[in-house]
C-alpha cells in the first residue's frame, strides 16, 4: 500500500496549521491550528506504522493524543483566564512578558 496520499494530506494539514498559528490573532483559532498540526503529525505517524507494518507509530500517536488532551485542558483554561481579565482573546495583546 502506498502512503503518499495520506502523507500529502498530512503535510497539507500541517502547513495550514502552521500558517494559522503564525497569522491569526484570535487565541482560540491559534489553538485550533495547533491541534490541527498535532493531528497532521498523528496522521503521518499512523501512515508510517501502516507502511512499515509495526506498531511503533500507532503507540506514538496515542501518546500525542494524550498530550493533546491534557494541553487542551490547560490551554483553554489559560485562554479563559486571559479573556476574563482583559476582555480580549488576541494573542498580541498578551505581551507584558518582555524586555
Amino acid at each position, binding site marked *: 500500500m502506498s502512503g503518499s496520499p495520506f502523507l500529502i494530506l498530512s503535510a497539507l494539514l500541517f502547513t495550514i496549521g502552521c500558517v494559522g*498559528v*503564525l*497569522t491569526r490573532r484570535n487565541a482560540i483559532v491559534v489553538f485550533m491550528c495547533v491541534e490541527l498540526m498535532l493531528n497532521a503529525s498523528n496522521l503521518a505517524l499512523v501512515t508510517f506504522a501502516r507502511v512499515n507494518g509495526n506498531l511503533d507509530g500507532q503507540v506514538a500517536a496515542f501518546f500525542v493524543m494524550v498530550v493533546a488532551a491534557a494541553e487542551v485542558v490547560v490551554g483553554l483554561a489559560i485562554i479563559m483566564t486571559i479573556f476574563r481579565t482583559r476582555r480580549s482573546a488576541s494573542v*498580541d495583546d*498578551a*505581551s*507584558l*512578558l*518582555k*524586555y
Partner: protein
Amino acid sequence: MVNPEQAGGAFSLLWVIIALPALGAALILVMGNRRTSAFAHLLGCATVVVSFALSLVELVALLGRDESHRQVVQHLYTWIHAGSFHADFGLLYDPLSAVFLLLITGVGGLIHIYSVGYMAHDERRARFFAYLNLFVASMLTLVLADNYLLLFLGWEGVGLASYLLIGFWQARTSAAVAAKKAFVVNRVGDIGMALGTMLVFATFGTVSFAGISAASGHASQTTLTILGLLFLLAACGKSAQVPLQSWLLDAMEGPTPVSALIHAATMVTAGVYLVVRSSFIFDHTGAARTAVVIVGAVTLIWGAVIGCAKDDIKKALAGSTMSQIGYMMLAAGLGVAGYPLAIFHLLTHGFFKANMFLGAGSVMHAMDDDVDMRHYGALAKALPITFVTFALGYLAIIGIPPFAGFWSKDRIIEAAFADNFVVGLAALIGAGITAFYMTRLMLMTYLGQKRWADHVHPHESPTVMTIPLILLGAASALGGLLLLNNWIVDWLAPVVGSATAEHLPVPVAVLTVITVIVVLVGVAVAWLTVGRHEVPRTAPSKVSFVTRAARADLYGDLANEALLMRPGDEFVNGLVTFDDHVVDGAVTGTGNAFSGMSATFRRIQTGFVRSYALSLLGGAVVVVFIMMAVNLT
C-alpha cells in the same frame, strides 16, 4: 649536660609553684575586676609568696641531694603526641631553674607587695594583679619547662603578659602604642624561637632538653651554628638586645612595678636563660658564641650611652637595664667560663634593678608622677628610706666593693679580658659609663638644689612600699655573698659544666683595681659635669651630636623605620594597587562584559507570541535541513 631523674618526695610539688599564680590570675580574671577588688591584691601576693616558700623548700631538698643527682624531672602528662612528635608537659628542676625560681618568686613577690601600695588608687587594681600573676606564672613555666616547646609556651605567655601590663593604662595613646611596639618587636624574636624549636626537632627528633643534650655532639657544625643564631635572635627580642632593643625604652609607659618586674625578675632575663639553658648547643659552636658576645658587647655600650642622656628617670634606668643585660649576654657568649657569671650577674642585677625601679616609683609617687629628673633635686631629705635603699642599689650597679654588682661585674670583665682584649675593653668602658650615668641620676634626683615647684610636697611612701625597698636594698648590698667560696659557679656546674682556669694577661688583683679606678673616674666625671653646676629645669638644646643621638635612643627607631617600615609600607601599597587594578579589574571587567551583552541580546524578547512561534518554526526547519543534509552525505 642535662640528665635528670624522676621526681619524688618534695619535688612532686613542683607543679604547685606554677599552678598557684596561674590560679590566682584565672580566678581574678574570670570573676572580674569589680567582684574581686576587695581581695585580689591579697590573693595575688599570697600566691606568689607561697610559691616562693615552696621554691625555698625545693631548694633545700635539692641541696640535700648529692651533686651528681641534682637534676630532677616531674612528668605531669603527655602534652602532644602525634606520629614521631612527642612533647611532654614536664618540669625540669635543676640548680639553674632553682635560682631562677627564687629570683622570680622572691623579687616578683616583693614587687607584688609594693604594688599593693603603688596601685592603691587605681580602680583596676584587681585586674593589674591578675596580669602580674599571669606574668609570674608564665615566667615560671618558662624556666621550669623540660623541653623547648613548653619553654615556648611560657615564652609567649611572658610576651602576652608584658603586652597587657605595658598597655595597662590603655586610655593613654602612648601606652597603647608602646604595648603594641613591645609585642611586635618581641614577635620578631619569637620567629627565631619558633624556627629554632622546629630545627631542633628536625635535627634531633625530640624537643626535650635531656634528649638534645645527649645527642648535640653528633649534629653537624652548621646546624648547631644556625640553631645558636636562631636562639640568639629569640634572646635578642626578649632581652632587648641590639638590634631588637627599641621596645624596652617605650615599655616605661607601664606602671612602675611592671617596669621593675620586666627588668629584674622576668621577661628580659628570659633571653639570658635561653642561652644558658641551651649551653649544650652553644658549647659546640664557636661562631654562634662569638655572635652572642658581639651582641652583648654592642648592647652594653649602646644602652649605657642612651642612659647618659635621658632626663626621664625610668628611661635612664631602662637604658641601664639594656646595658646590664648586655653584660649577661656577653658572659653567656664566653661559654662554660661565662654561663655561671651571666646567671650570677642576672641575680645581683635582679636585686639592685628591682630595688632602683621601685625606688624610682617611690620618687614618682612623691612627685605626683613627674618623671623628669630636672624637676627633682634634693629629694634625699624628703625621702630618706627611698634614698638610702636607692643608694645601696646605686653602689651595687656601678660596682663599688663590697656591694653585689662589684662581684658579678668584675668577674665578667675578667672573663671577657681572658677571652678577647677588645671585648674586655668594651666591658671595662661600659663599667665607666655606667658609673657616670648612675651618678648623674643620683645627683639630679637626690642631691643638689631643690628644683620642684612649690605646690609639690614630696613625702615618703607608705610602709607597704618601703619594706620591699629595704629588703631589696639589703639584697643589693649582700648579693655578693653568693660568690662566697665560688658557690654559684660550683652550684651551676652540674648544668653548664665547669671551666678550667682562665689565663689573664695581668694578675686578677691588678684588673680589679683598674676596674674600680675606671668606675671612680666615671663617678668623678659625673660630679664635675653635673654635680658642681646648677641643673637647668629644662633640658639645654645646644648639646653635642652624641647627646642628641643618645636622646633619640641612638636613632634605633629611625633605623627601624627607614629600613623596615617604609619599604614594608611601599611593598604593601604596591600590592594594594595591583589588587585594585589588575585582580579587581579582571573580575569587574568580566562582569561588565556580560551585562553589556545581555543589554543587547534581551531586545530579542519582544513579548509577541507569534514572533516566538516564527522563530520556533525557523529553528525546526533548520534542524530538518541539517538532518537531511547529514542523511544525504
